[in-house]
């Protein structure tokens, strides 16, 4: 029995430490498989990797949400033209569009790209004659050609547009009319026959997505919402380059201090709390990677705060165990009573914290939301590790019979 517990305890401790090592440093396991270190898997926020952050705000406060979404799609298109991977274009706070472009530091170029007027032009075969502009187009939708079953873009022009288009299509049968959005060529369909009624169809779309894209661009022409840049932020690459090592150093020192403190103050249970804390850190990092959360500077601060708080449940339990030992109970029943009696404090205090966390998550914006998520994950994970892992490890350790003197348990 004792030998078996000794084996289980040692094995668990080794697994925890090996796993922590792998997440910290990574390793090549065999010739084909690499275990990546956590720092290579975590998605870093703009403040850590550098980039440009722009918040475009609708000039009109009560903006139509559909129009805002169309504007977002157009901005996304423009941002993608910058050729930067992993850009984000998202609606924020009801009347703003948040744009994050990592890895560039030229806010001016990004602003020019994003803030363009969006002029739509239909140009004749000579490349100069302007046949139609965005204001001539009433609607543009995606349809299917009944003969070929291919996706097409259907255009509806207004009266003035229909008249101009009828003349042009008559003149240019068999020649292409090009559609430009600012300087970008969107499509260059060839005129098949005269279109007198202002209802045209553009065929030759590669697939449904292309048809949707073209229809979307033509329809929205200029941005459907008037936007202005409310926030423009550039973060140079050296800021993150400095932030990551300093934060790592702070984390190592902070966590070491917590662990040393727990070990010195609580001895055997303290050592086990350190193992549980290691599991806590491993789990939080894995969850962060798993839900693809973005790590930001405030996120790092939140994580460190949660590490400091994660031992709280253990502190509560160990103080109870101490009290039970002092009134003369045996080691095993003190441990059982300690866990049992600390439970209601742990639950009530953590549930109130969770209430605050969820409110912040649902009502907060931007960095507050990210921070609330860290708070919620931290509380839930620490309740699990500080109760379950600690209890399992502590009981197994006591059953090994290696250290029996209750002095080492806080008596």
């Amino acid at each position, binding site marked *: 029995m004792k030998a078996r517990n000794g084996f289980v305890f040692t094995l668990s401790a080794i697994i925890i430490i090996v796993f922590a090592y792998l997440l910290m440093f990574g390793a090549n396991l065999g010739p084909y498989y690499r275990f990546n270190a956590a720092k290579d898997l975590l998605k870093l926020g703009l403040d850590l990797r550098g980039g440009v952050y722009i918040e475009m705000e609708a000039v009109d406060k009560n903006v139509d949400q559909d129009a805002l979404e169309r504007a977002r799609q157009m901005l996304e298109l423009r941002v993608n033209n910058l050729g930067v991977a992993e850009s984000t274009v998202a609606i924020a*706070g009801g009347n703003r569009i948040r744009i994050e472009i990592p890895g560039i*530091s030229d*806010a*001016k170029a990004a602003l020019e790209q994003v803030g363009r007027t969006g002029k739509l032009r239909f140009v004749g075969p000579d490349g100069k004659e302007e046949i139609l502009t965005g204001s001539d187009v009433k609607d543009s939708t995606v349809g299917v050609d009944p003969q070929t079953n291919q996706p097409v873009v259907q255009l509806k022009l207004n009266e003035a547009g229909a008249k101009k288009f009828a003349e042009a299509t008559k003149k240019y049968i068999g020649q292409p009319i090009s559609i430009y959005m600012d300087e970008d060529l969107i499509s260059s369909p060839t005129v098949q026959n005269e279109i007198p009624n202002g209802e045209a169809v553009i065929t030759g779309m590669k697939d449904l997505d292309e048809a949707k894209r073209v229809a979307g661009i033509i329809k929205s022409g200029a941005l459907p919402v008037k936007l*202005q*840049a*409310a*926030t*423009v*932020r*550039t*973060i*140079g*690459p*050296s*800021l993150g380059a*400095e*932030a990551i090592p*300093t*934060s790592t150093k*702070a*984390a190592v*020192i*902070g966590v070491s*201090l917590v662990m040393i*403190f727990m070990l010195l*103050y609580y001895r055997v249970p303290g050592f086990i709390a350190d193992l549980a804390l290691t599991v806590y850190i491993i789990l939080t990092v894995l969850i962060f990677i798993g839900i693809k959360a973005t790590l930001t*500077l*405030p996120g*790092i*601060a*939140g994580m*460190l*705060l949660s590490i*400091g*708080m994660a*031992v*709280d449940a253990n*502190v*509560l339990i160990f*103080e109870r165990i101490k*009290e039970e030992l002092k009134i003369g109970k045996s080691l095993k029943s003190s441990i059982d009573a300690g866990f049992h009696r600390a439970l209601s*404090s742990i639950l*009530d*205090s*953590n549930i*109130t*914290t969770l*209430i*605050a966390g969820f*409110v*912040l998550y649902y*009502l*907060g914006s*931007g*960095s*507050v939301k990210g*921070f*609330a998520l860290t*708070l919620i994950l931290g509380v839930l994970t620490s309740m699990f590790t500080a109760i379950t892992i600690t209890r399992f490890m502590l009981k197994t350790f006591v059953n090994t019979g290696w250290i029996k003197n209750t002095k080492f348990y806080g008596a």
Partner: protein
Amino acid sequence: MLKIVERTRLWFAISLIIIFAGLISLVVQGLNYGVDFRGGTVVTVNIGKDFDSKEIRQIAEKYDPQSTVRKIEGNQVEIISGNLTDEQVPKLFNDLKAKYNLTDKDLLSTNRIGPSVGNELKRNALKSVAVATILMLIYIWIRFEIKSGVAAIIALLHDVLITISVYTLLQIPVNSSFIAAILTILGYSINDTIVIFDRIRENRRTHKYHDYTTLANASITQTMARSINTVMTTLFTITAIYILGVPSIKEFALPLIIGIISGAYSSIFIASPIWVLWKKGEKYV
């Protein structure tokens, strides 16, 4: 057993002095709102060697006579302006680049924020505080009693007020991270109070104590080691990042440190005494 409740007046006086000074300061000089709230532009540049702020002020004033120049650690400079446009920022940096032989990498960050952003942030934060407070009050009411709930919430507001007081008294710039920190304090500092109230609830059931003062004193004493140890471990990590971290993370860590210390203080010296004061009229059961 510690005699905490007997000295209620002293504890209240300490807190009230700080909060009162804070309120006066709030009226006289207000909070030092940063660009996140006032709107404006901040350009942070790494000069790389020691420099004279006056020289940089001269350059900055070419673009905006009202701009302020602030030296921050590590030979970095922060230029804060209300009127700098997106086009002027690169020009300003080019001037600095020529003067101090900098490279593009030395432009650490630029930040321009419209004035409307901060207002929304404040509104959201106030709404979050109100909703979170009410929900926590209801939870404590159900699990404990309404008097515990109100005492806990007062302690919580105390922590928020103390943190704001420290910020206005020392004129530390308030940016969006301050709001996030205040909201975090809301979540964490309630923790300490609940642990003590939980002990009071438990001790009450044992019928070992015969009046509210002794009951509260005993409960505070029994949980004191836990209160101190948890504050210590939390401060270890957050202070480490405050000391070693980059300026923008410091801005976030500082209010947390103040809030955590205040939270531990208020759970012991404010929440429980308020509860006792209120319960004294009742017969001990």
